[in-house]
């Protein structure tokens, strides 16, 4: 394509947020529709990129490169490959759905929709940037609108949650920044692909280890990997519904994406050396996340902790690929399978947990409680809600035929071959997550006798069904036939594995 499709996709929401701010606040309906309409532009372009990405050639496509700050060799450098394309599409899709769902927002809708569009630019920027400076700019930029979304439109403890979210991520970011400055001084370049070629600090192992852990910390807090996950329950629970969807659906992926795009290719030897440590953290995230989720009685908090559990699979896949770095073609297949699983799990978790948070929002709007003990018997009362919640929950626990199964299977297939002990421990997580999803979510919400409090509960309205329909579609279609997305991912994964 000879027009800058990525730039247009990237900056349309930014321009849109300015347009929304300029609209009169007396007409909330108008600005909601305008914001939604604007968000369709990146969505359509993302679909276009998905279909016109040349799977035969692979590599970075739709590349745009221009000097930005030549004094320090910073470039405006965008491009997407088979890993970023699904993430870009996920971002555009969830943003549009979130905006549509957020039509119920009555409190300061103008600022809300403007922040949301700004957030979309930041997230897309992270997935598109091939220059570390640019990457960091968007990475940090994504903090600001989310901070306001939690802090202004959030629940009762919003102030605390907003500032905790911001500070936790900032600690990781600045650690990463220092390492990146050192890497820039070493290589003279901010180019992410170039850094992977040059392998900074390959002669100074101490420095390499320090830089590895600094960058790891930046991404691990975002993923989040145990023990850096403590910001997550607060932020997810206090955020408004659409904010939780974006947090869990996309912002967590920023960290995982960084692990795959940056940490693994730039420090393969270090990652290999420290794979046991990262593997332990991943296994703890999986099992501990599942156990803590099981002990929750707040539905939203339960789903928040289930993210720690499910993102752990991503980390397990990445660790498996890293553990065999440099061991040649013998392990390449298993590495590629594990990494394919990790990337697909990122997509699936975005779709599934996004849907779960929407569903929590749906029930909370009506019941004004999220206490699992207060529900029961809703299955017969609100059948549409029950149906959608059941499908989504099954997808989340990895039922074959739904999307979650494919990615978890791939991760474990790779991990069993390469890091068997960790895989065995982690497989406990699958059992526990099945337990809490069936017991807590399905049984406590849908089954049992109907609590009389909910006798007048209404089923999902059209807006809510339309919001969830695309997500259900992807859970089913990629559960039955994942080839379209796996072809895309595999291309890029094989390139990365080949370079390790």
């Amino acid at each position: 394509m000879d027009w800058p499709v990525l730039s247009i996709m990237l900056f349309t929401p930014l321009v849109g947020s300015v347009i929304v701010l300029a609209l009169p606040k007396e007409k909330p309906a108008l600005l909601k529709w305008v914001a939604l309409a604007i968000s369709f532009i990146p969505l359509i372009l993302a679909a276009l990129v998905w279909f016109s990405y040349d799977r035969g050639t692979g590599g970075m496509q739709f590349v745009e490169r221009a000097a930005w700050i030549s004094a320090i060799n910073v470039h405006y450098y965008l491009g997407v490959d088979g890993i970023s394309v699904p993430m870009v599409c996920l971002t555009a899709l969830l943003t549009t759905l979130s905006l549509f769902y957020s039509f119920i927002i009555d409190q300061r809708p103008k600022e809300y929709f403007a922040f949301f569009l700004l957030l979309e630019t930041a997230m897309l920027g992270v997935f598109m940037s091939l220059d570390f400076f640019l990457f960091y700019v968007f990475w940090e930029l994504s903090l600001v609108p989310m901070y306001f979304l939690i802090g202004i439109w959030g629940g009762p403890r919003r102030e605390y949650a907003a500032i905790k979210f911001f500070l936790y991520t900032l600690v990781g970011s600045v650690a990463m920044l220092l390492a990146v400055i050192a890497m820039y001084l070493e290589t003279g370049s901010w180019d992410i692909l170039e850094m992977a070629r040059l392998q900074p600090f390959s002669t100074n192992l101490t420095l390499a280890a320090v830089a590895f852990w600094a960058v790891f910390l930046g991404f691990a807090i975002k993923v989040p990997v145990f023990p850096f996950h403590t910001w997550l329950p607060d932020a997810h629970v206090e955020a408004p519904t659409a904010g939780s969807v974006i947090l869990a659906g996309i912002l967590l992926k920023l960290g995982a994406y960084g692990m795959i795009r940056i940490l693994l290719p730039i420090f393969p030897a270090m990652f290999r050396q420290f794979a046991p440590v990262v593997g332990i953290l991943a296994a703890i995230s999986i099992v501990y996340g599942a156990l803590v989720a099981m002990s929750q009685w707040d539905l939203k908090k339960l789903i928040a902790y289930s993210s720690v559990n499910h993102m752990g699979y991503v980390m397990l896949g990445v660790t498996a690929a890293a553990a065999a770095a440099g061991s040649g073609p013998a392990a390449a297949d298993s590495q590629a399978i594990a990494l394919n699983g990790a990337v697909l799990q990122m997509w699936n978790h975005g779709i599934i947990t996004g849907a779960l948070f929407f569903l929590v929002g749906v029930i909370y709007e009506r019941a004004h409680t999220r206490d699992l003990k207060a529900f029961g018997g809703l299955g017969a009362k609100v059948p549409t809600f029950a149906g959608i919640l059941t499908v989504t929950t099954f997808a989340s626990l990895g039922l074959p035929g739904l999307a979650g199964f494919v990615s978890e299977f791939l991760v474990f297939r790779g991990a069993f071959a390469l890091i068997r002990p960790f895989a065995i421990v982690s497989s406990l997580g699958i059992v526990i997550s099945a337990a809490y999803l069936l017991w807590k979510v399905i049984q406590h919400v849908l089954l049992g006798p109907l609590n009389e409090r909910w006798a007048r509960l209404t089923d999902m309205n059209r807006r809510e069904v339309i919001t969830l329909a695309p997500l259900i579609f992807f859970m089913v279609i990629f559960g039955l036939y994942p080839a379209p997305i796996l072809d895309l991912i595999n291309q890029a994964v094989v390139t990365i594995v080949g370079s390790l």
Partner: protein
Amino acid sequence: MLPTLSVLNLNGAVPQIAVAGAGMLIMLIDALFHRGSRRWAAYLALLGLAVALARVVESGASAETILDGALARDGLGMAFALVLIVAAALSVLVAMDYLRREEHERAEYYALILFATAGGLAMAMANDLVAVFIGLETLSISLYVLSAFFTGDAASREAALKYLLLGAFASAFFLYGIALLYGASGTTRLVEMGTAIRLAGTQADPLLWGGVALIIVGVGFKLALVPFHSWAPDVYQGAPTSVTAFMSVASKVAAFAALVRLLVVVLAPAAPLTSALLALLAVLTMTVGNILALAQDEVKRLLAYSSIAQAGYILVAAVAGEVGAAAVLFYLLGYAFTNLGAFAVVLAWSRRGEGRLPFSDLAGLGFRRPWTAAALSLFLLSLTGMPLTVGFVGKLYLFGAAVQAGWTWLAIVAVLNSVVSAFYYLRLVVIMYMREAEMPLALQRAGLALGVALAVCAAGVILLGLVPGVALDWARQAVAVVLS
């Protein structure tokens, strides 16, 4: 022999002459024809600063000296002079409506700002320790008077007295340091002093080390480095807010200009020792400044502690010596816009007759004053160091210089401090946007001049953050041309 006019090279001193001349003209006109509004004095001050700015920009750097070698017109001096003039002009804009509102609109205010600026310009360009000292005193004495400008206000008077007493101490230290360095090298000219020190080697010379230590103490007082900072919070809080705004930027620019020149021109051979000393001061300054800022509940005092911490960040690059000079310059340029902007918002929002702006007054202003609040949020994010603001590029450059010079641990301390600072900067944003006002503040209209100043500051913060290339090149080229 008396120097001839050509040796004096008064043509090169046009910036100082324009600034000081405008100040004297204001005093004269006010004494002879004063009637009614003093707004003309502000315009005259802006005119004088504009002439100086035009002269600095147009003439550029050169190797020639002024006043028989006392002042240098090299890149370093001219660049710091430029930052100082811009800061002074913004300070004048910020003060215009405030002084009228507080019923203290008098022409001397602008004259004193100009005299202080002339002193700062002398410090920025000084190639002679005596010139540094004269500049320092001109700047300081003007600031003492400005601090007491609200004569009816006990806090303002107390601030001025405290500043005067501790400032006099600092001057004494500085002067004694000059004397010792003169004893060690036999000259007060920086370039010759540098040569003498290089030739003599850096073996233990008590005169030299004593002199260096005393001068650093003197400059440390001026920059409010910890442990020489105790005057700053009280003075910053007690002085009229427009004075605090000016003081927090101008005296830092001038003092850092002198410090950088000393480090690069004179003390380069002694770098290991001076760097270690400055690194210690930097750690103390950042950490103490930030921790004390956490405990504040009033914006002006918070900004006072924040600017102590900011001086610590800048010192991190100063530790790196020549490598860090460009970073110091660039950061100060950004800091001028950011800090003056933040103080401008404090001016706009504080109650009449009160220097304080308690946190509780901010509640709900995010939506009641959307533009001003957005501007303050921008400045606070820049002070935190968020990308797309000048604060980010500046800190990147500062800490990058430290890493490049091998001071990685210092950069780590600085970065951790930035995270701590995020907490108190963001708290203001939280209060503005996330709390409802219990007793809404009766707000005045901001006034056109203040609006212009705010717009210029915000534009500076964004533009320098978005396209810093030009300014980075400028800073780098400026420090490459140092008279030595």
